[in-house]
């Protein structure tokens, strides 16, 4: 498998890969212990970067919003905008981007290293399917940790927004809390979680694909990690746009 054969070949190979992963998911054997181990490692690695990246966003929204809402004398509505933006939009998108940066690149680098060292071939020789043992656990792990992290980052974003608005900018605490849930519904939380699950699964797939296609030694490992992150960020933004257009059109 060479890396440079044009986008059409890559797309076809990716679809092929996707079908193979789906087949592995449906049929046994499953390596559940390996899946749990991967989830444990990725969760530990992602927790701090994802939290640190998403928490400032709540503060920035509050900080820029407070001036504008004051201009129109509707400070109280600040929290409804903050909650809508965080629940629906910024928490899922940014959490997924950070999961791509941390978990995606580390999965791609790990699989790429195994490929370059011939360990993938060694697994196949021992009649352990590398797809089942290496790729599928990463895929399942990303699928599960992305929405879990989204719950955390949603809470963090709201807290940091509250801190900035109420503690630093002196918006009334009662008005902030009263309006917080006036615009968001449980549907918004589900939409955020569904988006994160979709993006997380795609991150795991793309990382596994890029890792298995690594060629060219140590430099190739860096390229695999890099291309995973770039591809997934593009995918997240593009899909996110179409989802929000669809939701607007459906009136959800």
């Amino acid at each position, binding site marked *: 498998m060479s890396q440079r054969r044009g986008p059409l070949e890559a797309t076809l190979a990716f679809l092929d890969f996707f079908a193979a992963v789906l087949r592995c998911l449906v049929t046994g054997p499953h390596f559940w212990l390996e899946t749990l181990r991967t989830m444990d490692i990725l969760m530990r690695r992602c927790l701090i970067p994802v939290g640190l990246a998403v928490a400032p966003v709540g503060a920035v929204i509050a900080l820029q919003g407070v001036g504008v809402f004051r201009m129109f004398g509707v400070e109280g509505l600040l929290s409804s905008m903050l909650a809508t933006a965080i629940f629906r939009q910024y928490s899922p998108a940014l959490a997924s981007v950070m999961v791509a940066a941390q978990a995606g690149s580390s999965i791609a680098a790990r699989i790429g290293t195994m490929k370059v*060292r011939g360990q993938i071939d060694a697994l196949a020789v021992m009649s352990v399917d590398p797809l089942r043992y290496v790729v599928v656990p990463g895929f399942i792990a990303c699928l599960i940790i992305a929405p879990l992290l989204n719950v955390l980052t949603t809470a963090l974003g709201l807290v940091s927004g509250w801190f900035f608005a109420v503690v630093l900018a002196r918006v009334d605490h009662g008005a902030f809390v009263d309006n917080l849930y006036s615009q968001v519904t449980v549907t918004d939380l589900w939409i955020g979680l569904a988006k994160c699950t979709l993006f997380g699964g795609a991150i795991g797939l793309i990382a596994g694909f890029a890792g298995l296609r690594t060629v060219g030694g140590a430099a190739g490992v860096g390229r695999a990690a890099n291309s995973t992150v770039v591809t997934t960020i593009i995918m997240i*933004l593009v899909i996110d746009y179409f989802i929000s257009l669809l939701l607007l059109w459906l009136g959800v």
Partner: protein
Amino acid sequence: MSFVWFVRHALVAQFSRLPPAEQFLRHAVDAGVGSVALLTLLIFFAGMSLAVQGYGAFVRMGGQEFLGLFCGIGGVRELFPVMAAIVCGARIGANLAASLANMQISEQIEALSVMGIDPMRYLVAPRLWAVVFTMPLLCAYADVVGLSASYFAAVVQLGVDQGTFSAQLREIIRWQDLAVGVGKGVAFGWLVAIIACYHGYRAAKQEGAAGVGVATNRAIVHSTVVCIVLNMILSAILYA
């Protein structure tokens, strides 16, 4: 080798003498021109999403005529510079880290020192200058593309009144805002480059190919987190 030690030596190497023009140009073209296509694609979708989501949020409160205000403040002041920094970290930073780590594990950096060439001056300084020079340009470009995309989504797709939208943009966006965005670009560029060079430079030789992967991963994650946190601090100082 600590980060402080690395920054001190990199600063000395960066400012003691300007890098050779040819090296600087090569890295600047690689970082700048190489990122334009990716940045255009991402910022275009980010700008359109901003307008669509803002519209969705404002429709609930019945204030869709304030979309121009929202896109101006949210986009030019915050979203476009940060997105440019994330793209820069993911592409330029990861490339720098991977190439330096590759040189480190194949002992090319040691070979340079043996030949009496300071790797800081020969490898790190031109890269730092190149990224610091290209990032503000990319940020300015991101503002243009992002605003056009927001305008397109708001006026063409969502049917917001064109006059209101552009009047609000003109009212809320001042030259200072654009200058702040470009200034943020300088800071983001330097930070991304120094973090990427640091992780590439200290890649562990005995780990081989795995070391390159670790360096790339850390460069992407650390530079993204640092840029987002720095953006919050800068915004809090400038706008609060």
